[in-house]
């Protein structure tokens, strides 16, 4: 029972960090129809900024710096793409993000090298115990912060003018533009927000029991992809649900690898994708994705 509770708690912690990343994918996709493949490297940039600044300004300000840097980088990427490739279709911009990802990762790798960088987080290797269930404090903090941030983003969607513009733009760009919504600003804000969320995710990915931020930290963004797709690429609630499903399924598959050995070893790695395919077979638009309607 302890093991089950621990595994579930871990799955939730992992899922909540995935949710920060997946939400970024969704926000960008909703606003501009682009799949941002540079999200992993933007996450790495945010995390690296935290590691580079925490000694000078302290952890909380460093996280703010990281979020600002990642947000600015994502915003810049959007601004450059929107300006340089004016009128380009979303698929072209999607391909562009792959190129930017390569550039950014290479530049960051040259700085990070073989090191494991500390973000200077206050949790260190402290462990919280609930009865027999042990979980690191950084994991708990990850869950709390993710819940707060995601709640904040949902509130923003629901009650702010920007959220309204965003929903309008996602529903029908042309109509939104005709109603006086400045699409460019809405999109820019979406990209910046996604970048900032990724930077916060980087802090928790680098926290104990991980040894720190290293050159491969950004690769975790790939794990959040199935989460975003599973939930429905244009649904924020879907991203959250998808992330929790993915986090739990990979944690359970890894935790019960021995019992599941009849299905072959290494199930934990394919579990997220397996769940994604199964869900998509039943609901092709994801758990909460909106159905595409076309009049004939």
């Amino acid at each position, binding site marked *: 029972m302890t093991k089950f509770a621990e595994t579930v708690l871990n799955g939730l912690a992992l899922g909540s960090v995935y949710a920060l990343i997946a939400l970024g994918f969704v926000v960008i996709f909703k606003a501009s129809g682009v799949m941002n493949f540079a999200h992993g490297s933007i996450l790495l940039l945010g995390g690296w900024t935290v590691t580079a600044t925490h000694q000078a300004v302290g952890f909380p300000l460093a996280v703010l710096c990281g979020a600002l840097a990642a947000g600015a980088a994502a915003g810049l990427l959007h601004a450059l793409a929107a300006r340089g490739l004016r009128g380009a279709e979303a698929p072209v911009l999607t391909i562009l993000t792959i190129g930017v990802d390569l550039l950014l990762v290479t530049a960051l790798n040259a700085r990070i090298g*073989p090191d494991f960088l500390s973000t200077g987080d206050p949790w*260190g*290797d402290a462990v919280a115990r609930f009865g027999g269930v042990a979980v690191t404090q950084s994991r708990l903090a990850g869950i709390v912060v993710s819940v707060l941030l995601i709640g904040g983003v949902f509130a923003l969607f629901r009650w702010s003018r920007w959220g309204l513009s965003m929903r309008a733009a996602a529903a029908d760009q042309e109509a939104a533009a005709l109603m006086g919504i400045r699409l460019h600003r809405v999109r820019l804000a979406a990209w910046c927000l996604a970048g900032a969320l990724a930077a916060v995710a980087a802090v928790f990915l680098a926290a104990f*029991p991980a*040894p720190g931020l290293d050159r491969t930290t950004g690769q975790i963004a790939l794990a959040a992809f199935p989460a975003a797709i599973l939930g429905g690429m244009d649904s924020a609630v879907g991203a959250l649900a998808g992330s929790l499903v993915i986090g739990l399924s990979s944690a*359970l598959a890894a*935790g019960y690898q021995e019992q599941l050995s009849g299905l072959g070893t290494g199930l*934990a790695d394919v579990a997220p994708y397996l769940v994604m395919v199964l869900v998509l077979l039943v609901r092709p638009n994801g758990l909460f994705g909106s159905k595409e309607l076309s009049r004939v």
Partner: protein
Amino acid sequence: MRTTTRLAAAVAVLALTATACSTKGSSADGAVGKDGVKTGPGVTDSTITMAALTDLTGPYASLGKSIVNAQQLWVDQTNATGGICGRKLRIVVKDHGYDVQKAVTAFTEVEPDAALLTQVIGSPVVAAIKQDLNGKHLLALPMAWASTMLGQPYIQVVGSTYDVDMITGVDFLTRKAGLVAGDRIGHVYFEGEYGENALAGSKSAATKGGLTLVEQKIKPTDQDLTAQVSALREAGVKAVLISAGPKQTAALVGAAAGQGLAVPVLSSAPGFAPQLLDTAVGAALERQLYVVSAISPVSAEVSAMRQLVQDYQAKYPGAPVDSGVASGWSAAQVAAEALSAACAAKDLTREGIAAAHRKTTALNILGVPMNFSDVAKAPTRQAYILKPAKGVTGGLATVEGAHEVKG
């Protein structure tokens, strides 16, 4: 008519390109130098050119850099005392970033002008060029220790293999954790040659000791091993083996410390990097981790090693002195011995170098005796048991010196 002309022009261009490509080799096989020594590819009257396929930009960049540095140190020192066989040494280093395609391209580029390969990083890379190495009789020294590389006449593993290391490791853990028949031990391992070869060793040792092995297979992209640790704790393991990368070792020990799984953890040599000691997991690593290594630690109390560390630090001030320095230097010693013996036999062709290498039966490399005469066997079955220790050169202190465990 115009089509024919164009076709002819295209064929001519192709033919010219092909000719340009095929004139790359510098010295013909079987030529005899002024000093009466038969020479082969890469060997002229004044120079012996070798090649290295390394990783300077990929996941093993830090290791690759140390290996390249250590081997360059050997080249410089040897050249300062007149070289080998009256010829200066030279290593052409190619970075493949752990990308097999790039590595194969780099190999095709350097192969025609190489007398031997002083390092090849990556089991997948070795597997990709294996046929060519054997076909072209080019001796290669891989920086990988899987037993699948044994039995290949032109591939020489320098040290004991992962499976043998694990047998040594299980023996150590049995004594350390007081394991008795019926106890359970865990093994977390990478999919692929490295992890699976290590697993073969732990399985064999577990069977022999009456232990039950709990297996957990992971991938190099896995960053969080909390669920695996929960499973191991639930299974009641008394010790854990891990054959993965440094990041996974740290993630495992970190999670074990977090969950109160205070059992000894033993890692294969590639699973440790000294950089880990400065992280939040550093203290847990010093408490719980052991490393089994076929190559002597750079902190070993062996005069050859002390000299190497001193020379290395003088030549590359500030560069980390890690296990790559020792393994790069060890491979260089094998190359040096093979070249010197081939020179004595007046045959510096590739076949001559490989044949001379196989006659080396007692080469002491940094305190470990090695015998290269049997293609099917690793040159040694000895391995060290080490322990992470901050402040020690290379981050590893010796717990048990090089020794062999019958398995």
